[in-house]
């Protein structure tokens, strides 16, 4: 769904149309679920939050303000909801703390396509490299390449500037590239 085709749907939802609500739910449940699971690493918290989140949306639909991009709006608000609930659950004092001290955005080899354009490294290795990035770098990678958000939307969701998303991406790939290179070199050395 692109942004323009969603606006009327969103409008219908605001007006209380149950079908519009269901349609939004079905379109975004899976994506938001994966995102929540990546943040919390906890299926129950994620499911719980997602339920309450949609109920909240429906209840407060008239007070949600102007929504230009439905997808990034949902990602932003749901992210906040999950972090809030983690904060409660794990007794962290701030959102940042609950993100930093958790194992958020860990990737597993099964989540990667076999063919990676960026390298020929095995996915088990690539995953270790990805997981060695900072939490913020992993979240940017997740939102951009897994959720398919633009850099602008990623910035909005993470509540940081466009420039910091770009810098974060650049740092992440500088690190990945150099480590992939190390791996490839040592693999070659090993063979000879």
């Amino acid at each position: 769904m692109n942004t323009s085709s969603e606006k009327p749907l969103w409008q219908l939802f605001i007006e209380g149309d149950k079908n519009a609500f269901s349609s939004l739910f079905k379109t975004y449940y899976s994506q938001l679920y994966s995102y929540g699971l990546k943040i919390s690493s906890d299926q129950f918290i994620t499911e719980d939050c997602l339920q309450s989140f949609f109920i909240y949306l429906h209840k407060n639909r008239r007070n949600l303000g102007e929504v230009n991009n439905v997808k990034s709006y949902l990602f932003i608000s749901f992210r906040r909801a999950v972090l809030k609930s983690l904060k409660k659950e794990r007794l962290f004092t701030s959102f940042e703390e609950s993100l930093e001290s958790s194992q958020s955005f860990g990737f597993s080899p099964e989540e990667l396509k076999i063919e990676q354009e960026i390298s020929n490294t095995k996915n088990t290795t690539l995953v270790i490299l990805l997981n060695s990035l900072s939490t913020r770098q992993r979240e940017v990678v997740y939102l951009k390449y897994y959720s398919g958000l633009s850099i602008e939307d990623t910035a909005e969701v993470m509540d940081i500037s466009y420039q910091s998303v770009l810098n974060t991406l650049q740092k992440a790939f500088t690190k990945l590239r150099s480590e992939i290179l190390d791996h490839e070199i040592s693999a070659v050395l090993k063979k000879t």
Partner: protein
Amino acid sequence: MVSLLMKTIFMSKQNLSLLEILIDDISFVNWAKNQNQNDVAFWNNWIEKHPDKIETVFNAKAIVLGIQFDKTKLSESKIERELSHVLAQLEPEKNSPKSKKITSKAFKYIAITAVLVLMVTFGYSFLPTNTTVTHKTVFGEIIDLKLPDGTSVVLNGNSEISYDKTSPRNINLSGEAYFKVKSIPSTKAKFWVNTKDLKVEVFGTQFHVSTRDNKTGVLLDEGSIELLLDDGTTQKMIPGELVSYSKDDKAITHDKVTQDLSYSLWREGTYIFNNTTVYEVMKNVEQAYGMKTEFIDEELKDQKLTGGIPNQNLKICLSAIEKSTGTRIVVKDKRLLIFKN
């Protein structure tokens, strides 16, 4: 297009960085993806003339190519089910007692600790319905879980637990986990952990189960548990005891463990070793990160190590081992080569 783009690049004294321009440029994206011969030729030529920009160019290329994910989608029926839950709660506009899962109430735990280590599939298969809940960790990841019945589980790296939603006190495990089982005095409901080799039966305790090394090890901290082996016999365990069993050779071993054992401490993110050989230590690292160890200098195997090794970051983990043993560990592909320093 090319000339337009050249203009953009050289006229962009404004705020745009080269990186920003590149990742939004169709011609550059074509070069990165090796898609259009003209663009490929143009950019190869451009790079040759601007060797100082090469870092930025390759970073931009990496950002354009990105990481390809194989996205998992929830099943339609799962989404429908969740939707109907939510819809049901929308109807009465006024009342709002939402179904909340029990989270952090103070439970009385009887202490059970178990470690199961085994890199194999479960002996217990379940029906292929999607009511199975699975929690899985990647290498180097440790997660805290709360099961629906209130039982806490700490799941070590490269491990998996699963259970059917209808019986959340009957868990399958491969890998390594620590369980703090919530006792239910009113019904005396049992709690089971199934591994390929055996079944652990408990009422409410803390124990540690590990299924690595092709056998299952269970370590009981407190309380009492019973092991149901696949040959039909049962074994009662007493606190402080470590029992290992493999269904392959039917061998059962009982060990009395002393306090400073390495077993249960991984859940704080550290492996504790007490006069352990480097060989044993590396076994732990292999399990946690899916690597293979090669001792280039064989005699290093028997060197002893005492202390805590962080287990959530391979780099830090290896440098800790290097420091405390005076060895050098080189990561090559998925192998850890150990040299004398």
